[in-house]
């Protein structure tokens, strides 16, 4: 028997240093790795191993500018994420990664940014938004559009209040269904896009949300003459190995991208010929 010291299946050990229930289905975790920083870039993901249960790919929702630990927001959806709801401070996890192609932050430098997040899409996008806020002078105008099903589904509520107060970002939000206390917009996220002023030649739009949202949001952005390669998406697939091998995340596209390695972030130009976004 030989031990494979450099096996890519070996896990980094992460301890939960803080956890908070955000909504009925979503829980937030702050995780400290015993071997140092995660050293990720905005838009990347990690494989979270719950020993004995299995592994699942989760987007990192904190910016790399936050050092010492990283954050995940996990919706109870599959087997592993259901188990994660029961975890709290002090519990250990196995972590592989970071994996995936990050958002093209260097290309975005000097440009106006339009962030469009639907539902849990705010989690991966938050890693970029907070990165941009921490490096605010590198970028032009910043608009954030957020859509949720109902006001109680809104994630990162306290932080969002901070974004709303800032003078250097423009934040707008809408809900599909209102409740008596809600005073904001009601309607689909696409309804917010016509209200944003876009200079097509120097704007990057970053869109993250459920697959159904992409079609309609992209149509609105194209109406605004935004070039296809300045529309950045983060696609969802089941990235089982994270190393471009297991086959689960491969996209039905003439180029057969592996979402875990060639993505999850893509320009719309790259993936517009996909059967599904």
């Amino acid at each position, binding site marked *: *028997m*030989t*031990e*494979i*010291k*450099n*096996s*890519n*299946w*070996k*896990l980094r*050990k992460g*301890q939960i240093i803080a956890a908070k229930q955000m909504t009925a289905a979503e829980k937030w975790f702050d995780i400290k790795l*015993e071997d140092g920083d995660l050293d990720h870039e905005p838009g990347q993901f990690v494989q979270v*191993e719950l*020993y*004995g*249960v*299995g*592994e*699942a790919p989760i987007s990192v929702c904190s910016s790399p500018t936050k050092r010492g630990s990283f954050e995940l927001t996990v*919706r109870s*959806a*599959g*087997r*592993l*994420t259901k188990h994660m709801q029961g975890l709290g401070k002090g519990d*250990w996890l*196995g972590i592989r990664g970071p994996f995936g192609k990050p958002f093209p932050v260097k290309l975005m430098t000097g440009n106006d940014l339009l962030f469009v997040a639907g539902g849990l899409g705010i989690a991966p996008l938050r890693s970029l938004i907070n990165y941009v806020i921490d490096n605010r002078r590198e970028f032009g105008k910043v608009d954030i559009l957020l859509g949720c099903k109902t006001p109680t589904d809104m994630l990162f509520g306290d932080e969002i209040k901070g974004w709303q107060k800032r003078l250097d970002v423009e934040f707008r939000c809408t809900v599909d269904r209102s409740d008596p206390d809600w005073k904001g917009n009601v309607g689909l996220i696409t309804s917010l896009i016509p209200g944003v002023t876009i200079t097509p030649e120097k704007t990057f739009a970053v869109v993250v949300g*459920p*697959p159904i949202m992409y079609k309609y949001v992209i149509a609105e952005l194209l109406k605004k003459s935004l070039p296809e390669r300045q529309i950045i998406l983060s696609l*969802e*697939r*089941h990235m*089982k*190995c994270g*190393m*471009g*091998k*297991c*086959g*689960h*995340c*491969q*996209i*039905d596209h*003439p*180029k*057969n991208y592996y979402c875990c390695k060639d993505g999850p972030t893509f320009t719309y130009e790259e993936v517009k010929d996909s*059967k*599904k976004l």
Partner: protein
Amino acid sequence: MKSWPVSGSEVLPFLIFTAFLRPPRRAGEASRPLIEYNIWAVSVIIKTEATSVNYHILRKDKLDGFIKSLARKMKVCAPVAKGHNNFAFEEVSSAGEIALSYIPTILPPKKYFMPQREKMLDFDLTGDQPKDAANLEAPGMAIFGVHTCDLAGIQCLNMVFSEKPRDYNYILRKEKVLIIGLECNAYCDGHASCALVGNHYPNGGYDLFFTDLGDRFIIHVNTQKGEELVEGMGLAKANPADMSALDAVREGKKKAFQNEIGTELKDLPAVFAKGTDSKVWKEVGDRCVSCGNCTNVCPTCYCFDMADTINLDMKTGFRTRTWDSCQFGTFATVAGGENFRSERSERQRHRLYRKFKYPIDKFYRSFCTGCGRCTRTCMAKISLKDTLKALVAENK
């Protein structure tokens, strides 16, 4: 032989001599500078020497001794008849157990490189924080009688798993395997399409390669590991008559093996690029039962699943990798419920794009090796050759 460097006066007569050794000039071909003839002559001399050095002869009645001697050194696996024209790679200890004339085995030799179930990680939760280790058990072994289609399959997997991030389980396992190929002098059956992908001839990927010359095998030695083995067994070197016999076998195969679908491999990626919405996929999808047989028996299908097992002590456990299939209904489903390939037609299309489009773009090589296993095993009798022909007819 004199060692280099040699002086100019020694080289000059050689250059003049070799300049007269001209390759046959084809009609209409212009005469070439003398130096080209020098290069040609040297290459012929080197090649002739190399070919006679790298070929050995094993009389057929000595095969049993060869296998037994090999089996004393390491585990030997070879094709074994299982009845009803089925064959399987299994451990053998003598030549009598081996089916020398066999159609592709039920499972390709992929199972020795990427086992159906493989432990990737052991973990231990007894301490304050979890511990894990990646342990590999891969004893040395030899696979005898690997056809050229399956040699190609192993080469495909080598490319995939050596690509970063590397899969060390595969790589370390591979390094422990001695591969002995066996040439097909005739077609195995009508399902194969090895001529389409150029795998009816050996394209490397072996340590030793056997070709049947009637009463004897001629063995091509391709690696130092193979050389040491045949040297150790004292096998005679091939003589010019053996080499001519080998050439005759190869020449005969040119006629016997013809492109099975009438379209060149190099033209297929363009056909696939056009064919994403082809009606072929719906026809195939309507018949497919999503059993996953085609991918399990494919020598280049490597998709896998990972799963944890916790031991009864609830403190220790392990992670295993098992073969998975893109043909299964939930293969591309995410936790939220969205299924990115919910239709059988989409999954069948995906399988063939993974053989004829994506790998040709990425690795410059077809991931269909032409073995014909997917057609042979299909419960719905979906034929790869028919699917390709229909796709070509629709998207020429």
